[in-house]
C-alpha cells in the first residue's frame, strides 16, 4: 500500500514533442483514481511513467516515500494490467500468474498459495492449465488481473484494461473491478477514455487534456462543478450543451432569447459560454414565458424507457471555442459541418416528450446553468 505523488511531472520525447506538462497531484493510499481524457492526451504516458516504462524528464514521481524517477520498473513494487492483456502466449494461465513471483524467488508453496487464491477470487481456477489462446476475452482479462493481484504490489496500474471487451462484458467486468478494489483496497491508477468507466469506478477522476491536468475531483464534484469548459463538456453523456452569449441585468442573452441568471455574475464578463446539462431541461406543463425557456425546433426523439433524449435546434449560430472544437473532434464530429443552428440535447420525462417536428419552448432550470469565459474556458 502506498500513495503516489506527482510533483511537477513533465515528459518531453527525444524529438522535442511535449507529452505531459507540469502535472502535480497525489493518489492517496488505497484510492482508485481514474485518468480520463481524449485519445492522445497523455494519460497513458503518465501511467507508463509511473510504471517505469517511460522516462520522467521533468519533476518527480514518488511511490510511498521513495522517489522512483530512476528506479527500474521491477523495483517499483507496482503491477500493471495492459490494454491487450500482454499474457505470455507460450505459458499456461498458472505460469502467467506465477512468472513474476518466480522471478522474485518466492517459494513454490507460496507461489502455489497465491496463484490459487487469486484464481479463486477471479473464478479462473478451472482454466489454470490452459494457454491464453484457449480463453475468451473476458477470461484473458481476468488472467491479466490475476497476474497483477498475485504480486500483492503497493499499487495497480491499469491501462484501458476493458477497452478490448465487448460492451456487455465491459459493464460486467467494470463492476467486478469495482468489487475487487473494494476488497483489496490497493492503490489503483486507472487509465480510460470512457468517461462512464471513469465516473463509475473512480474515487476520484483526473481529467487530462493535451498533457495538462485539468481537474482532479470526486466524480459527482466533477460533474456538478467542472473547473472549465473542457471538463464540463467531456464529463457527462449526453454531453453538456453549450451556447454563447453575454450576461447583463440579471439575464443571459444568447441572441435568440434570454434566460434569467440567478447567480452573481459580473455584468462586465464580456462574452461567455453557458453550459446546460441535458437533464436540466424540462417540458413545461402549461405555456411558458420565452424568458424561462428556449424556443426549440424538435428533431429526433430517442425513447430510452426511463427517460427520453430530445434532440433540438435553436436559432443561434453554434459557439466554437478551441475547447469545444477539441471536444467535437474527440466525439468524431467536424466543427465545420455544424451548420447555422446550435444543436442541443435534452433529457426529459418520457411521457411528456414532444414529437419530432414540434416547435415549442423547453424549460431550463436556469439556476443550474454553468458559465465559462469564452476566452479562457475557465468557469465564472
Amino acid at each position: 500500500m502506498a500513495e503516489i505523488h506527482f510533483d511537477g511531472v513533465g515528459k518531453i520525447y527525444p524529438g522535442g514533442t511535449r507529452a505531459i506538462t507540469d502535472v502535480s497531484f497525489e493518489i492517496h493510499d488505497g484510492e482508485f483514481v481514474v485518468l480520463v481524457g481524449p485519445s492522445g492526451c497523455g494519460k497513458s504516458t503518465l501511467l507508463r511513467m509511473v510504471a517505469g516504462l517511460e522516462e520522467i524528464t521533468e519533476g518527480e514521481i514518488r511511490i510511498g516515500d521513495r522517489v522512483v524517477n530512476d528506479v527500474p520498473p521491477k523495483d517499483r513494487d507496482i503491477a500493471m494490467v495492459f490494454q491487450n492483456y500482454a499474457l505470455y502466449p507460450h505459458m499456461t494461465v498458472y505460469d502467467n500468474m506465477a512468472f513474476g513471483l518466480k522471478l522474485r524467488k518466492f517459494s513454490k508453496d507460496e507461489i502455489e498459495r497465491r496463484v490459487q487464491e487469486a484464481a479463486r477470487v477471479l473464478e479462473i481456477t478451472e482454466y489454470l492449465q490452459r494457454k491464453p489462446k484457449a480463453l475468451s476475452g473476458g477470461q484473458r482479462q481476468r488472467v491479466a488481473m490475476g497476474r497483477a493481484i498475485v504480486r500483492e504490489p503497493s499499487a495497480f496500474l491499469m491501462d484501458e484494461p476493458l477497452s478490448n471487451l465487448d460492451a456487455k462484458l465491459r459493464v460486467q467486468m467494470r463492476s467486478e473491478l469495482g468489487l475487487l478494489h473494494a476488497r483489496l483496497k490497493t492503490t489503483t491508477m486507472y487509465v480510460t477514455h470512457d468517461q462512464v468507466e471513469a465516473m463509475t469506478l473512480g474515487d476520484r477522476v483526473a481529467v487530462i487534456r493535451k498533457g495538462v491536468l485539468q481537474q482532479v475531483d470526486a466524480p459527482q464534484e466533477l460533474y456538478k462543478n467542472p473547473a472549465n469548459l473542457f471538463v464540463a463538456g467531456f464529463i457527462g453523456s449526453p454531453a453538456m450543451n453549450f451556447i454563447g452569449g453575454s450576461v447583463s441585468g440579471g439575464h443571459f442573452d444568447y441572441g435568440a432569447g434570454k434566460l434569467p441568471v440567478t447567480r452573481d455574475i459580473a455584468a462586465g464578463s464580456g462574452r461567455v459560454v453557458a453550459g446546460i446539462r441535458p437533464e436540466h431541461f424540462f417540458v413545461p406543463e402549461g405555456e411558458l414565458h420565452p424568458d424561462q425557456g428556449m424556443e426549440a425546433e424538435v428533431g429526433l426523439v430517442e425513447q430510452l424507457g426511463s427517460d427520453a433524449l430530445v434532440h433540438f435546434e435553436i436559432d443561434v449560430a453554434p459557439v466554437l471555442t478551441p475547447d469545444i472544437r477539441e471536444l467535437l473532434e474527440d466525439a468524431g464530429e467536424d466543427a465545420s459541418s455544424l451548420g447555422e443552428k446550435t444543436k442541443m440535447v435534452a433529457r426529459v420525462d418520457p411521457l411528456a416528450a414532444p414529437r419530432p417536428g414540434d416547435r415549442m419552448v423547453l424549460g431550463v432550470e436556469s439556476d443550474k446553468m454553468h458559465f465559462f469565459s469564452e476566452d479562457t474556458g475557465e468557469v465564472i
Partner: protein
Amino acid sequence: MISRRSVTLRHIGLWIGIFFALYPVVWIISASVNPVDNLAASRLIPEGLTLDNYRGLFDDPLVPFRDWLINSWKISLAGAIGNLALAALAAYSFSRLRFRGRRAGLLGLLLVQVFPQFLGFIAIFFTLQAIGEVAPGFGLDTHAGLLLVYLGGAIGFNTYLIKGFMDTVPISLDEAAKVDGASPALIFWRVILPLTRPVLGVIFIITFVGLYGELLLASVLLRSAENFTLAMGLQQFSLSEYAAKWGALSAAAILGSAPIVATFLVAQKQIVGGLTQGGVKG
C-alpha cells in the same frame, strides 16, 4: 464435374512427374546395393542384394569416410547452433533496442548479403592464414577456422528473418515481463525466444542443411584428407579411382544424404509452420 477422361489425363501427368523425381533416387539406391560395381553393368533392378558397398566405405584404410561423416556433422551442427545463437541475439537487439547506428546496421547487414560470398574467398583465405600465425587452432585447415567463416556467412540473412518475426511479438509482452521483474536477458530467454521458436527451428534446419552440403569454402580452407567434410570427400571420390566404383559412390551419397532427408521428414510441419506463422499474429 470433372470428366473421367480428364482425371485419367491428370493422373498420367502426375505419374510422369513422380517418375522423373524418383527415378534417380531409386537408381542410386539400387546401385548402392548392387553387387556389380560399375556403371556400365548396373541396372535399375539389381541382380542381387549386398551391403558390401556400405561396408567397404568404412573398411577402406585409404578413405577416411567415417571421419568425413563425423566432420560434417560436427561442423554443421556447431555452425547451425552458433549461427542461430548469434542471429537471434542480433535480431533481438535490432528488434527491441534503440541505439545509435541501428538503421545503418540493418542496412549494412542487408547490403553485405547482396554480394556473393566467393567474392571474398581470397580475403578470407589470407585472413585465416594470418589468424593461424597467431592462433594456430583457428587457422587454415582447421575446423574452428572454417566454423568462424561459416558463422559470419549467414548471420545477415538469418538476423533479418528472425527480426521480422520478433517484430510481430507485441512489445507489451516485454513491458509486462519488465514490470514482472525480468531483465532484458531474461526477457529474451523466457519470453521472446520461446515465441520465436518456429522460425528458429526453420533457420536451424536450413542452416544445418546448407552447411552440410557446403563445398566451395570448405575446399578452399581445408587441406588434409582427414579434415575433409563429407561434401569434399564425395567430390574427391568422383575425381579418384572411386569414380569407377559406382556402387561405393552411391552408398556414400545415400549415407551422406540420409540425415538431411530424415531431418526434413521429422521437421516438415515445423518448417511450413515457421515460414508462414510470421505473417499472422495468433
